[in-house]
Protein backbone atom coordinates (compact mmCIF):
# COMPACT_ATOMS: atom_id res chain seq x y z
CA UNK A 1 0.00 0.00 0.00
CA UNK A 2 1.30 3.44 -0.86
CA UNK A 3 1.48 5.88 1.99
CA UNK A 4 0.39 9.49 1.50
CA UNK A 5 2.46 11.92 3.53
CA UNK A 6 3.16 15.66 3.77
CA UNK A 7 6.92 16.13 3.53
CA UNK A 8 9.60 18.40 2.08
CA UNK A 9 11.39 17.46 -1.13
CA UNK A 10 14.57 16.80 0.83
CA UNK A 11 12.70 14.55 3.24
CA UNK A 12 11.17 12.64 0.33
CA UNK A 13 14.55 12.04 -1.30
CA UNK A 14 16.13 11.10 2.04
CA UNK A 15 13.34 8.54 2.41
CA UNK A 16 14.10 7.19 -1.06
CA UNK A 17 17.74 6.81 0.04
CA UNK A 18 16.56 4.97 3.16
CA UNK A 19 14.47 2.58 1.11
CA UNK A 20 17.31 1.94 -1.36
CA UNK A 21 19.97 1.75 1.36
CA UNK A 22 23.18 2.45 -0.62
CA UNK A 23 26.35 0.73 0.59
CA UNK A 24 28.25 3.99 0.89
CA UNK A 25 27.13 7.59 1.14
CA UNK A 26 29.60 10.46 1.25
CA UNK A 27 28.16 13.68 2.56
CA UNK A 28 29.09 17.31 2.90
CA UNK A 29 26.41 19.79 3.90
CA UNK A 30 25.56 22.69 1.61
CA UNK A 31 22.38 24.74 1.55
CA UNK A 32 19.76 23.78 0.39
CA UNK A 33 20.91 20.14 0.22
CA UNK A 34 21.86 19.97 3.93
CA UNK A 35 18.45 18.83 5.15
CA UNK A 36 18.55 15.83 2.82
CA UNK A 37 21.82 14.43 4.14
CA UNK A 38 20.93 15.43 7.70
CA UNK A 39 17.78 13.33 7.52
CA UNK A 40 19.58 10.44 5.87
CA UNK A 41 22.36 10.62 8.50
CA UNK A 42 19.63 10.25 11.12
CA UNK A 43 18.46 7.03 9.44
CA UNK A 44 22.06 5.76 9.60
CA UNK A 45 22.46 6.80 13.25
CA UNK A 46 19.16 5.18 14.19
CA UNK A 47 20.27 1.93 12.62
CA UNK A 48 17.48 1.98 10.04
CA UNK A 49 20.04 1.49 7.26
CA UNK A 50 23.47 -0.11 7.24
CA UNK A 51 24.92 2.47 4.86
CA UNK A 52 28.51 3.49 5.54
CA UNK A 53 28.41 7.28 5.94
CA UNK A 54 31.63 9.05 5.04
CA UNK A 55 31.70 12.55 6.49
CA UNK A 56 34.23 14.41 4.39
CA UNK A 57 35.77 17.89 4.56
CA UNK A 58 34.60 19.17 1.17
CA UNK A 59 32.50 18.25 -1.84
CA UNK A 60 35.66 17.51 -3.79
CA UNK A 61 36.39 14.85 -1.19
CA UNK A 62 32.77 13.69 -1.16
CA UNK A 63 32.87 12.93 -4.87
CA UNK A 64 36.37 11.42 -4.56
CA UNK A 65 35.14 9.11 -1.80
CA UNK A 66 32.18 8.15 -3.98
CA UNK A 67 34.48 7.33 -6.90
CA UNK A 68 36.65 5.14 -4.67
CA UNK A 69 33.71 3.37 -3.09
CA UNK A 70 31.99 2.80 -6.45
CA UNK A 71 35.18 1.45 -8.01
CA UNK A 72 35.55 -0.85 -5.01
CA UNK A 73 32.15 -2.28 -5.92
CA UNK A 74 29.59 -0.48 -3.76
CA UNK A 75 26.25 1.12 -4.52
CA UNK A 76 27.06 4.75 -3.83
CA UNK A 77 25.18 8.02 -3.39
CA UNK A 78 25.83 11.59 -2.34
CA UNK A 79 24.08 14.94 -2.86
CA UNK A 80 25.05 18.55 -3.36
CA UNK A 81 24.12 22.06 -4.49
CA UNK A 82 25.67 25.11 -6.12
CA UNK A 83 29.31 25.77 -5.11
CA UNK A 84 29.49 22.18 -3.86
CA UNK A 85 28.77 20.86 -7.33
CA UNK A 86 31.25 23.36 -8.75
CA UNK A 87 33.90 22.06 -6.33
CA UNK A 88 33.17 18.50 -7.50
CA UNK A 89 33.71 19.47 -11.13
CA UNK A 90 37.07 17.76 -11.55
CA UNK A 91 35.87 14.46 -10.08
CA UNK A 92 32.52 14.51 -11.94
CA UNK A 93 34.42 13.73 -15.12
CA UNK A 94 36.30 10.90 -13.43
CA UNK A 95 33.06 9.32 -12.17
CA UNK A 96 31.57 9.36 -15.67
CA UNK A 97 34.80 8.45 -17.47
CA UNK A 98 35.24 5.41 -15.23
CA UNK A 99 31.55 4.51 -15.76
CA UNK A 100 30.73 4.50 -12.07
CA UNK A 101 26.95 4.46 -11.41
CA UNK A 102 26.87 7.01 -8.58
CA UNK A 103 23.52 8.69 -7.86
CA UNK A 104 23.54 12.32 -6.76
CA UNK A 105 20.55 14.56 -6.09
CA UNK A 106 21.46 18.14 -7.03
CA UNK A 107 19.29 20.62 -5.15
CA UNK A 108 19.49 23.46 -7.64
CA UNK A 109 20.91 26.72 -6.33
CA UNK A 110 22.55 29.82 -7.82
CA UNK A 111 26.31 30.06 -8.17
CA UNK A 112 28.44 32.77 -6.57
CA UNK A 113 29.40 35.61 -6.81
CA UNK A 114 27.43 37.22 -5.26
CA UNK A 115 26.61 34.52 -2.72
CA UNK A 116 23.00 33.41 -3.02
CA UNK A 117 21.50 30.33 -1.45
CA UNK A 118 18.28 30.29 -3.51
CA UNK A 119 17.16 28.44 -6.57
CA UNK A 120 18.35 28.68 -10.10
CA UNK A 121 19.84 26.15 -12.47
CA UNK A 122 23.32 27.53 -13.02
CA UNK A 123 24.89 24.78 -10.89
CA UNK A 124 23.59 21.76 -12.79
CA UNK A 125 23.87 23.57 -16.13
CA UNK A 126 27.55 24.14 -15.42
CA UNK A 127 27.97 20.37 -15.11
CA UNK A 128 25.79 19.46 -18.08
CA UNK A 129 28.66 18.24 -20.23
CA UNK A 130 30.43 16.28 -17.51
CA UNK A 131 28.98 12.99 -18.76
CA UNK A 132 26.46 12.63 -15.96
CA UNK A 133 22.91 11.68 -16.85
CA UNK A 134 20.55 14.43 -15.63
CA UNK A 135 16.95 13.88 -14.59
CA UNK A 136 14.97 17.01 -13.69
CA UNK A 137 12.01 17.05 -11.29
CA UNK A 138 9.03 19.40 -11.12
CA UNK A 139 8.01 18.65 -7.54
CA UNK A 140 8.84 16.54 -4.51
CA UNK A 141 6.97 13.53 -5.91
CA UNK A 142 9.06 13.61 -9.08
CA UNK A 143 12.27 14.11 -7.08
CA UNK A 144 11.39 10.99 -5.04
CA UNK A 145 10.37 8.97 -8.10
CA UNK A 146 13.41 10.09 -10.13
CA UNK A 147 15.78 9.18 -7.30
CA UNK A 148 14.44 5.62 -7.22
CA UNK A 149 14.60 5.31 -11.01
CA UNK A 150 18.07 6.92 -11.11
CA UNK A 151 19.62 3.87 -9.43
CA UNK A 152 18.12 1.55 -12.03
CA UNK A 153 19.23 3.78 -14.91
CA UNK A 154 22.75 4.31 -13.55
CA UNK A 155 23.27 0.64 -12.75
CA UNK A 156 21.88 -0.74 -16.01
CA UNK A 157 24.61 -2.93 -17.48
CA UNK A 158 24.33 -1.19 -20.90
CA UNK A 159 24.92 2.17 -19.29
CA UNK A 160 26.87 2.26 -16.02
CA UNK A 161 26.93 6.02 -15.79
CA UNK A 162 26.44 8.41 -12.87
CA UNK A 163 23.09 10.19 -12.56
CA UNK A 164 22.14 13.60 -11.16
CA UNK A 165 18.58 14.08 -9.95
CA UNK A 166 17.86 17.82 -10.10
CA UNK A 167 15.15 19.59 -8.11
CA UNK A 168 14.71 23.22 -7.20
CA UNK A 169 16.32 24.48 -4.00
CA UNK A 170 13.89 25.69 -1.32
CA UNK A 171 10.93 25.80 -3.74
CA UNK A 172 10.92 21.98 -3.75
CA UNK A 173 13.61 21.02 -1.24
CA UNK A 174 12.03 22.87 1.70
CA UNK A 175 8.34 23.27 0.81
CA UNK A 176 5.99 20.69 2.25
CA UNK A 177 3.94 18.83 -0.34
CA UNK A 178 1.68 15.84 -0.59
CA UNK A 179 3.75 12.79 -1.53
CA UNK A 180 2.91 9.17 -2.18
CA UNK A 181 5.58 6.93 -0.73
CA UNK A 182 5.98 3.45 -2.11
CA UNK A 183 6.38 0.57 0.31
CA UNK A 184 9.95 -0.14 1.42
CA UNK A 185 9.78 -3.68 0.06
CA UNK A 186 8.43 -2.50 -3.30
CA UNK A 187 11.30 -0.03 -3.70
CA UNK A 188 13.89 -2.59 -2.60
CA UNK A 189 12.56 -5.08 -5.11
CA UNK A 190 12.45 -2.44 -7.85
CA UNK A 191 16.07 -1.32 -7.46
CA UNK A 192 17.19 -4.89 -6.83
CA UNK A 193 20.52 -6.15 -5.64
CA UNK A 194 23.53 -4.22 -6.88
CA UNK A 195 25.92 -6.05 -9.18
CA UNK A 196 29.24 -4.25 -9.55
CA UNK A 197 30.90 -4.47 -12.96
CA UNK A 198 34.63 -4.43 -12.20
CA UNK A 199 34.94 -4.28 -8.41
CA UNK A 200 38.43 -3.55 -7.10
CA UNK A 201 37.63 -5.60 -4.00
CA UNK A 202 37.44 -8.72 -6.16
CA UNK A 203 41.09 -9.44 -5.42
CA UNK A 204 41.12 -12.67 -7.44
CA UNK A 205 40.65 -10.60 -10.57
CA UNK A 206 43.09 -7.71 -10.28
CA UNK A 207 42.43 -4.60 -12.37
CA UNK A 208 43.49 -0.97 -12.68
CA UNK A 209 41.19 2.05 -12.72
CA UNK A 210 42.19 5.34 -14.34
CA UNK A 211 45.21 4.48 -16.48
CA UNK A 212 47.26 7.00 -18.45
CA UNK A 213 45.99 7.09 -22.05
CA UNK A 214 47.85 9.40 -24.42
CA UNK A 215 47.46 10.15 -28.12
CA UNK A 216 47.61 6.47 -28.98
CA UNK A 217 44.13 5.67 -27.64
CA UNK A 218 42.45 8.65 -25.90
CA UNK A 219 40.43 9.57 -29.00
CA UNK A 220 39.11 6.00 -29.22
CA UNK A 221 38.31 5.93 -25.49
CA UNK A 222 36.23 9.09 -25.86
CA UNK A 223 34.41 7.74 -28.91
CA UNK A 224 33.54 4.58 -26.99
CA UNK A 225 32.32 6.73 -24.08
CA UNK A 226 30.22 8.92 -26.37
CA UNK A 227 28.50 5.86 -27.86
CA UNK A 228 27.16 4.79 -24.45
CA UNK A 229 24.90 7.85 -24.26
CA UNK A 230 22.93 6.67 -27.29
CA UNK A 231 21.62 3.80 -25.18
CA UNK A 232 20.41 5.97 -22.33
CA UNK A 233 17.00 7.22 -23.63
CA UNK A 234 15.73 3.66 -24.20
CA UNK A 235 16.78 2.56 -20.72
CA UNK A 236 15.18 5.66 -19.19
CA UNK A 237 11.90 4.85 -20.94
CA UNK A 238 12.08 1.15 -20.03
CA UNK A 239 12.74 1.91 -16.37
CA UNK A 240 9.86 4.42 -16.39
CA UNK A 241 7.52 1.75 -17.76
CA UNK A 242 8.47 -0.60 -14.96
CA UNK A 243 8.15 2.19 -12.45
CA UNK A 244 4.61 2.87 -13.65
CA UNK A 245 3.71 -0.70 -12.73
CA UNK A 246 4.65 -0.16 -9.09
CA UNK A 247 3.52 3.46 -8.75
CA UNK A 248 0.88 4.22 -11.38
CA UNK A 249 2.87 7.33 -12.32
CA UNK A 250 4.09 7.82 -15.90
CA UNK A 251 7.41 9.27 -16.92
CA UNK A 252 9.09 9.76 -20.28
CA UNK A 253 12.02 11.64 -21.75
CA UNK A 254 9.99 14.83 -21.31
CA UNK A 255 6.49 15.83 -20.35
CA UNK A 256 4.17 17.24 -23.00
CA UNK A 257 1.33 19.33 -21.59
CA UNK A 258 -1.46 20.23 -24.03
CA UNK A 259 1.19 20.24 -26.76
CA UNK A 260 -0.37 17.98 -29.42
CA UNK A 261 -2.54 20.62 -31.11
CA UNK A 262 -0.63 23.64 -29.79
CA UNK A 263 0.43 26.55 -32.00
CA UNK A 264 2.61 28.25 -29.43
CA UNK A 265 4.60 26.64 -26.67
CA UNK A 266 6.81 27.09 -23.65
CA UNK A 267 9.80 24.96 -22.75
CA UNK A 268 10.69 25.12 -19.08
CA UNK A 269 12.38 22.93 -16.47
CA UNK A 270 11.44 21.90 -12.94
CA UNK A 271 9.10 23.69 -10.54
CA UNK A 272 8.21 26.62 -12.81
CA UNK A 273 6.49 24.14 -15.13
CA UNK A 274 3.69 23.77 -12.57
CA UNK A 275 2.87 27.48 -12.55
CA UNK A 276 3.09 27.54 -16.34
CA UNK A 277 0.59 24.68 -16.68
CA UNK A 278 -1.98 26.61 -14.62
CA UNK A 279 -1.55 29.66 -16.84
CA UNK A 280 -1.77 27.49 -19.96
CA UNK A 281 -5.11 26.15 -18.70
CA UNK A 282 -6.42 29.73 -18.39
CA UNK A 283 -5.38 30.55 -21.96
CA UNK A 284 -6.80 27.27 -23.26
CA UNK A 285 -10.16 28.24 -21.75
CA UNK A 286 -9.95 31.38 -23.89
CA UNK A 287 -9.34 29.21 -26.96
CA UNK A 288 -5.63 29.93 -27.30
CA UNK A 289 -3.70 26.87 -28.40
CA UNK A 290 -0.71 26.92 -26.08
CA UNK A 291 1.24 23.96 -24.73
CA UNK A 292 4.28 23.11 -22.67
CA UNK A 293 7.29 20.84 -22.97
CA UNK A 294 9.11 20.05 -19.74
CA UNK A 295 12.38 18.17 -20.29
CA UNK A 296 12.98 15.35 -17.81
CA UNK A 297 16.04 13.67 -19.32
CA UNK A 298 18.21 16.71 -19.99
CA UNK A 299 21.50 14.80 -20.41
CA UNK A 300 21.86 13.04 -22.74
CA UNK A 301 19.51 15.44 -24.52
CA UNK A 302 16.89 13.54 -26.58
CA UNK A 303 17.12 16.03 -29.45
CA UNK A 304 15.27 13.95 -32.05
CA UNK A 305 12.22 13.39 -29.86
CA UNK A 306 12.20 16.99 -28.62
CA UNK A 307 12.60 18.36 -32.15
CA UNK A 308 9.70 16.24 -33.40
CA UNK A 309 7.51 17.36 -30.51
CA UNK A 310 8.08 21.05 -31.23
CA UNK A 311 8.62 21.31 -34.97
CA UNK A 312 4.97 21.99 -35.89
CA UNK A 313 4.51 24.91 -33.52
CA UNK A 314 4.57 28.52 -34.77
CA UNK A 315 6.39 30.13 -31.88
CA UNK A 316 8.17 28.75 -28.83
CA UNK A 317 9.74 30.46 -25.83
CA UNK A 318 12.49 28.62 -23.98
CA UNK A 319 12.65 29.81 -20.39
CA UNK A 320 16.07 29.40 -18.82
CA UNK A 321 16.71 29.63 -15.10
CA UNK A 322 20.41 30.20 -15.86
CA UNK A 323 22.25 32.55 -18.15
CA UNK A 324 25.27 31.74 -20.29
CA UNK A 325 27.54 34.68 -19.65
CA UNK A 326 29.45 35.63 -22.75
CA UNK A 327 27.67 32.89 -24.66
CA UNK A 328 24.78 33.40 -27.01
CA UNK A 329 21.67 32.04 -25.27
CA UNK A 330 20.63 30.20 -22.13
CA UNK A 331 21.70 26.54 -21.90
CA UNK A 332 18.23 25.02 -22.37
CA UNK A 333 17.58 27.29 -25.35
CA UNK A 334 20.76 26.11 -27.06
CA UNK A 335 19.67 22.47 -26.89
CA UNK A 336 16.13 23.26 -28.07
CA UNK A 337 17.45 25.39 -30.93
CA UNK A 338 19.88 22.64 -31.92
CA UNK A 339 17.07 20.06 -31.81
CA UNK A 340 15.05 22.11 -34.31
CA UNK A 341 17.70 23.59 -36.57
CA UNK A 342 17.60 20.86 -39.22
CA UNK A 343 13.83 20.82 -39.68
CA UNK A 344 12.55 22.73 -42.70
CA UNK A 345 9.41 23.89 -40.91
CA UNK A 346 10.15 25.03 -37.40
CA UNK A 347 8.84 27.52 -34.85
CA UNK A 348 10.24 30.96 -34.23
CA UNK A 349 12.25 30.70 -31.01
CA UNK A 350 12.80 33.22 -28.25
CA UNK A 351 14.77 32.89 -25.05
CA UNK A 352 13.78 34.39 -21.71
CA UNK A 353 15.89 34.26 -18.55
CA UNK A 354 13.81 34.09 -15.36
CA UNK A 355 14.01 33.36 -11.67
CA UNK A 356 17.74 33.76 -11.03
CA UNK A 357 18.85 33.40 -7.41
CA UNK A 358 15.37 32.46 -6.21
CA UNK A 359 13.45 35.32 -7.88
CA UNK A 360 9.81 34.19 -7.93
CA UNK A 361 8.35 32.98 -11.19
CA UNK A 362 4.83 34.35 -11.13
CA UNK A 363 1.75 33.57 -13.27
CA UNK A 364 2.08 37.05 -14.82
CA UNK A 365 5.52 36.10 -16.14
CA UNK A 366 4.04 33.12 -17.96
CA UNK A 367 1.17 35.35 -19.16
CA UNK A 368 3.64 37.92 -20.50
CA UNK A 369 5.53 35.23 -22.39
CA UNK A 370 2.37 33.69 -23.86
CA UNK A 371 1.05 37.13 -24.92
CA UNK A 372 4.35 37.75 -26.67
CA UNK A 373 4.20 34.33 -28.38
CA UNK A 374 0.64 35.04 -29.61
CA UNK A 375 1.95 38.24 -31.19
CA UNK A 376 4.95 36.47 -32.76
CA UNK A 377 2.75 33.69 -34.14
CA UNK A 378 0.51 36.36 -35.72
CA UNK A 379 3.21 38.62 -37.18
CA UNK A 380 6.26 36.39 -37.38
CA UNK A 381 8.23 39.29 -35.94
CA UNK A 382 10.50 39.02 -32.89
CA UNK A 383 11.29 42.17 -30.94
CA UNK A 384 14.12 40.72 -28.88
CA UNK A 385 15.55 37.20 -29.03
CA UNK A 386 16.96 36.94 -25.53
CA UNK A 387 15.90 38.98 -22.54
CA UNK A 388 15.55 38.80 -18.77
CA UNK A 389 11.98 38.77 -17.45
CA UNK A 390 10.83 39.80 -13.97
CA UNK A 391 13.77 42.18 -13.69
CA UNK A 392 13.51 45.78 -12.44
CA UNK A 393 14.59 48.55 -14.79
Amino acid at each position, binding site marked *: MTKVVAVTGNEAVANAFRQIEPDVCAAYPITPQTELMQRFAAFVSNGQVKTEMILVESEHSAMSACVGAAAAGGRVATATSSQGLALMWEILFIASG*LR*LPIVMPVVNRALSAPINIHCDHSDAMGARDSGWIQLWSENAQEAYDNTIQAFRIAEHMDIRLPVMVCYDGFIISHSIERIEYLDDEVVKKFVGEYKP*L*YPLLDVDNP*KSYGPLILTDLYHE*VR*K*AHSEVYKKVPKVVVDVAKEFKKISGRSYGLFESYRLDDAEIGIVILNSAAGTTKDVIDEYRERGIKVGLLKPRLFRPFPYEEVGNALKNLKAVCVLDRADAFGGSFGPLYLDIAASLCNFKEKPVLINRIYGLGGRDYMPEHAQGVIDELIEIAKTGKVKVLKEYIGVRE
Partner: protein
Amino acid sequence: MIGWKDIPPGMVLLEAGSALKFKTGSWRAFKPRWIEENCIQCLLCWLYCPDNAVKVKDGKRQDFDFDYCKGCGICAMECPGKKGNKAIVMEEEVK
Protein backbone atom coordinates in the same frame (compact mmCIF):
# COMPACT_ATOMS: atom_id res chain seq x y z
CA MET B 1 46.28 -0.91 -32.61
CA ILE B 2 42.82 -1.42 -31.16
CA GLY B 3 39.73 0.52 -32.27
CA TRP B 4 37.05 2.21 -30.18
CA LYS B 5 34.81 -0.87 -30.20
CA ASP B 6 37.44 -2.83 -28.27
CA ILE B 7 37.60 -0.40 -25.34
CA PRO B 8 36.37 -1.94 -22.05
CA PRO B 9 33.82 0.12 -20.07
CA GLY B 10 35.55 2.90 -18.15
CA MET B 11 38.87 1.89 -19.78
CA VAL B 12 39.41 -0.34 -16.75
CA LEU B 13 42.49 -2.49 -17.23
CA LEU B 14 41.50 -6.06 -16.55
CA GLU B 15 44.96 -7.52 -15.97
CA ALA B 16 47.59 -7.16 -13.32
CA GLY B 17 51.20 -6.10 -13.82
CA SER B 18 50.61 -4.56 -17.24
CA ALA B 19 53.08 -1.77 -16.46
CA LEU B 20 55.81 -4.28 -17.35
CA LYS B 21 54.73 -3.97 -20.98
CA PHE B 22 55.77 -0.35 -21.13
CA LYS B 23 59.47 0.32 -21.05
CA THR B 24 59.93 3.54 -19.19
CA GLY B 25 63.69 3.94 -19.41
CA SER B 26 63.75 5.97 -22.60
CA TRP B 27 63.64 9.53 -21.30
CA ARG B 28 66.63 9.57 -18.93
CA ALA B 29 68.94 12.58 -18.73
CA PHE B 30 71.29 10.81 -16.29
CA LYS B 31 71.93 7.13 -15.85
CA PRO B 32 73.33 5.30 -12.83
CA ARG B 33 76.57 3.37 -13.13
CA TRP B 34 77.15 0.47 -10.72
CA ILE B 35 80.69 0.15 -9.38
CA GLU B 36 80.77 -3.42 -8.18
CA GLU B 37 83.97 -3.21 -6.10
CA ASN B 38 82.37 -0.49 -3.91
CA CYS B 39 79.14 -2.45 -3.41
CA ILE B 40 78.50 -3.94 0.03
CA GLN B 41 75.29 -5.70 -1.14
CA CYS B 42 73.13 -3.80 1.35
CA LEU B 43 70.31 -3.74 -1.27
CA LEU B 44 69.17 -0.26 -0.23
CA CYS B 45 69.16 0.65 -3.94
CA TRP B 46 66.79 -2.26 -4.64
CA LEU B 47 64.58 -1.16 -1.75
CA TYR B 48 64.40 2.48 -2.81
CA CYS B 49 64.12 2.08 -6.59
CA PRO B 50 60.63 3.27 -7.59
CA ASP B 51 60.74 1.39 -10.89
CA ASN B 52 62.05 -2.08 -10.09
CA ALA B 53 65.14 -1.29 -12.16
CA VAL B 54 67.62 -2.87 -9.73
CA LYS B 55 67.88 -6.59 -10.36
CA VAL B 56 68.63 -9.07 -7.60
CA LYS B 57 69.48 -12.71 -8.07
CA ASP B 58 70.05 -15.20 -5.24
CA GLY B 59 70.13 -12.30 -2.79
CA LYS B 60 72.93 -10.59 -4.69
CA ARG B 61 72.66 -7.32 -6.53
CA GLN B 62 73.02 -7.54 -10.30
CA ASP B 63 73.40 -4.67 -12.75
CA PHE B 64 70.54 -2.27 -13.56
CA ASP B 65 67.64 -3.07 -15.87
CA PHE B 66 67.83 0.07 -17.97
CA ASP B 67 64.52 -0.62 -19.72
CA TYR B 68 62.82 0.62 -16.55
CA CYS B 69 65.34 3.09 -15.11
CA LYS B 70 64.17 6.73 -15.37
CA GLY B 71 67.47 8.05 -14.02
CA CYS B 72 65.91 9.55 -10.91
CA GLY B 73 69.12 9.12 -8.90
CA ILE B 74 67.49 7.92 -5.69
CA CYS B 75 69.68 4.78 -5.67
CA ALA B 76 72.86 6.85 -5.97
CA MET B 77 71.72 9.13 -3.17
CA GLU B 78 70.84 6.29 -0.81
CA CYS B 79 73.92 4.17 -1.57
CA PRO B 80 76.20 4.13 1.51
CA GLY B 81 79.11 2.74 -0.55
CA LYS B 82 82.21 1.19 0.91
CA LYS B 83 84.35 3.38 3.19
CA GLY B 84 82.88 6.55 1.69
CA ASN B 85 83.19 5.39 -1.91
CA LYS B 86 79.76 5.20 -3.57
CA ALA B 87 78.87 2.06 -5.48
CA ILE B 88 76.41 4.02 -7.67
CA VAL B 89 77.24 7.24 -9.50
CA MET B 90 75.06 9.21 -11.88
CA GLU B 91 76.48 9.99 -15.29
CA GLU B 92 75.06 11.98 -18.17
CA GLU B 93 73.16 9.82 -20.63
CA VAL B 94 74.95 9.51 -23.94
CA LYS B 95 72.88 8.29 -26.83
